[in-house]
């Protein structure tokens, strides 16, 4: 597998701050991987996202050093139009990205910008609308639908442009649990059926962990840890020192492991299902 995104001692400092938001980071993201990016607010997660699709440096004022390669080419070597066909970005506040009067207009906006023929637009609509389940909303103003629906509309409008790389910046912060689950279901399908490269910035680890192949911990401008998901969470003490609060199941088994009540060589279960099975093994042995 090859790196589809590569940061090379990349630094970005906003001109309004003294500290760099990202400080000489090196990071590679493999094609087809789903990568979860976590870390406290102010760690540079959003800066990372914007640096991949060129909003940084184009729409922000600041100082940039080092390189970011997307599909083998430096970000600045692309025109904005070329880049947005390769990297799709979903923002944390869906409302802030709606500028059209109906959901339909919102979803076709990006495709129109790409200059796609009408037939192709229709074909893509036929794909993305059922995928994100926004069919009944097409005629409504995008800002009048519910929070979870808004986020799916935002996702659809980016997916319709068929970017091979998808970056989601806290896509579920504004959502209730059901809305959150449905967004992750869409990502799940994308992973299964389309092998997209997806980068998700998220606080809600519960949903992220079962989906992610890799995890990255950003901490005040530095990449402190980047690994496959399971080994990543084996270093829980380190993570907790850096303000990562694991979901209950992971934490529970971590404590068991520390106390020698769970085999030291067994992987930590990362989901409720996994945890249930492990717990039954532990207690069922003598039951």
């Amino acid at each position, binding site marked *: 597998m090859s790196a589809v995104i590569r940061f090379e001692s990349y630094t970005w400092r906003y001109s309004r701050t003294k500290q760099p938001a990202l400080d000489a980071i090196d990071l590679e993201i493999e094609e087809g991987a789903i990568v979860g990016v976590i870390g406290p607010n102010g760690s540079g997660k959003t800066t990372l996202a914007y640096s991949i699709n060129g909003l940084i440096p184009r729409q922000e004022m600041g100082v940039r050093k080092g390189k970011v390669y997307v599909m083998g080419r430096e970000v600045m070597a692309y025109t904005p139009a070329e880049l947005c066909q390769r990297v799709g970005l979903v923002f944390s506040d869906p409302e802030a990205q709606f500028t059209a009067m109906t959901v339909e207009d919102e979803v076709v906006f990006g495709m129109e910008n790409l200059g796609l023929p009408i037939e192709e637009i229709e074909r893509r609509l036929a794909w993305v609308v059922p995928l994100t389940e926004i069919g009944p909303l097409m005629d409504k103003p995008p800002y009048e639908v519910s929070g979870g629906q808004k986020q799916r509309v935002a996702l659809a409008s980016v997916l319709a442009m068929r970017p091979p790389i998808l970056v989601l910046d806290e896509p579920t912060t*504004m959502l209730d649990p059901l809305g959150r689950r449905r967004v992750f279901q869409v990502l799940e399908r994308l992973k299964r059926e389309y092998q997209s490269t997806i980068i998700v910035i998220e606080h809600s680890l519960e949903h992220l962990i079962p989906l992610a192949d890799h995890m990255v911990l950003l901490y005040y401008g530095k990449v402190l840890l980047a690994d496959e998901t399971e080994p990543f969470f084996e270093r829980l003490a380190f993570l907790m020192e850096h*303000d990562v609060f694991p979901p*209950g199941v992971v934490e529970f088994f971590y404590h068991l492991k520390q106390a020698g*009540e769970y085999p030291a060589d067994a992987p930590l279960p990362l989901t*409720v299902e996994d945890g249930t099975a492990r717990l039954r093994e532990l207690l069922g042995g003598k039951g």
Partner: protein
Amino acid sequence: MMKPEPYVVAENVTFRYPDGTVALRDINLRFAEGDFVALIGQNGSGKTTLSKCLNGLFKPTEGRILVDGLDTRHTSITKMAVRVGYVFQNPDHQLFNSTVWDEIAYGPRNIQLPKAEVEERVREAAEVVGLDESTFEQHPFFLPKGLRQRVAIASILALRPHMIIVDEPTTGQDVKQSLEIMDFLTRLHEERGHIIVIITHDMPIVARYARRTVLMAHSQILADGPTRSVFAQTDVLAEAFVEPPQITQLAQRCADLGFAAGTLSVQEMLEQFRSLAARRRA
């Protein structure tokens, strides 16, 4: 122990928007001294409407709400504001003064308190939320989001409402910041005796902080009781599309092994595990 007198009593409250949509249907609810309550449920289940009814911004279409013995329908908004404070979700909607000081002083000045008293209250509210003096002359618009939220809370605290409702205090905050805000609300509750109501989607936060949980769905109250027992009602939660925290789910799936359905923390889970394991070994 004497049962505390309810501070807020909602009786058969129905609320209809002018366009006819029913947002609340026949709500009966009491809040008493010592309550620290989480109001949970899907978006659109009526949580925010209910809160706005409790502080008199909306008047019930049917039924009535008594706050501190006063009927919200016949009580001026000023009298309500010093009893039930409501912190809006987006601090940007409620910050409109040009300095932090004026922002916090807005409420006390509005109820025409003498100058010395206004000053005392502003200082106190700022201290409680941890705003230091250097911010007083700054423009709220320039502050980072976390601080803006604190200013918003302080501006409500300065009115010294006995009950404080905070709409989604943790949205957009990372886990550490969320815990800080919640710890600070807990201090208000324990040290100053405020009744606290939080509206939230964050179930681990509910499990950790709220002693009582009110679950809403379809404009009605589906469950109301100690958080532990509300989270134990899996079928009701499912009906409201709410999932309890992961550790609670784990306990519930292993209920047949002897775990309590109302397990709220990893610590409780560990204790149960150890006693179960010990029993098995015996």
